[in-house]
């Protein structure tokens, strides 16, 4: 049987399948592990500081998150200005 399969070709070896699956899952888990990089809270705090110079804003009005789609990273910064926010500083 091993001779026949050797002569007439055979299915993909299971070790190769194992390696492929591991390459994918390990790469994905490495990305997941870093899905919330350390700098995001600091970035949010600094943005808050800068924006507060011009507009009255609460910490929860700034949302910073990093998203990944395939190979692209998107840094999303969402700043909500409430209706009662003081008018922007004069130009």
């Amino acid at each position, binding site marked *: 049987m*091993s*001779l026949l399969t050797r002569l007439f070709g055979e299915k993909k*070896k*299971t*070790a*190769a399948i*194992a*390696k492929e*699956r*591991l*390459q994918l*899952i*390990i790469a994905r*888990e*490495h990305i997941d*592990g870093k899905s919330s990089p350390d700098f995001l809270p600091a970035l949010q705090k600094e943005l808050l500081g800068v924006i507060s110079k011009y507009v009255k804003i609460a910490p929860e009005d700034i949302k910073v998150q990093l998203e990944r789609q395939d190979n692209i990273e998107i840094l999303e910064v969402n700043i909500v200005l409430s209706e009662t926010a003081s008018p922007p500083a004069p130009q």
Partner: protein
Amino acid sequence: MRIVVVTSGKGGVGKTTTSAAFASGLALRGFKTAVIDFDVGLRNLDLIMGCERRVVYDFVNVLQGDAKLTQALIKDKHVDTLHILPASQTKDKDALTEEGVEKVIKELETMGFDYVVCDSPAGIERGALMALLFADEAIVVTNPEVSSVRDSDRILGILQSKSRRAMEGREPVKEHLLVTRYSAKRVEEGEMLSYKDIQELLRIPLLGVIPESDAVLQASNQGVPAIHLKGTDVAEAYADVVSRFLGEDKPLRFVSYEKPSLIKRLFGST
């Protein structure tokens, strides 16, 4: 003094077998070595080392101040320079505190130990974290099998974030890959991940490959660390591991399989 953790994430891959053989190997080279069982509640290192009937006090007794470290350390019956600190069989895992473990390690240092080998429990819970916390080097025991490789990758991530070295921003824990239960024949046949595949996946230096062997069960049956089973491939592979760990250049053995030739397979052996 160097602290070496033997870890893996996954259970049953050969951590305790490796801790026993590796610690014995260091001691055989003349280094004063202590091997500590961190698997509180499920101790087994004592059985593998063959000292289970000599356990009076354990690691937790020492941590809780009920016994002195010198009372709990068991002198190995094969090698003078080796001492075993067994885990507690009954007590709560919470007894393992950072301060307690650190105190024991400092005491071992003042006693003049050259190496402390920490036998980690499986998983990523307290016992495993405590075992790797103070590590200078780590031996990551991995079987050529998907779940073991994935768990080794997880534990590497933990070493790189939760060890004291990582947290204090010091030079990182030196990582070593040890592939165990390796069958060169099955690798050759494409049924098993090769050590090169595993190294490529985990990206850490290879310390050695331990072949799958009946000798491991023979060793544990008798409570004799596998490195003492003279003439077996496992004993020699572990001796090579110790040599490489100490910086000696030893080529890999037991990793190739000679395929019978086509003629042999067609007509039987000649």
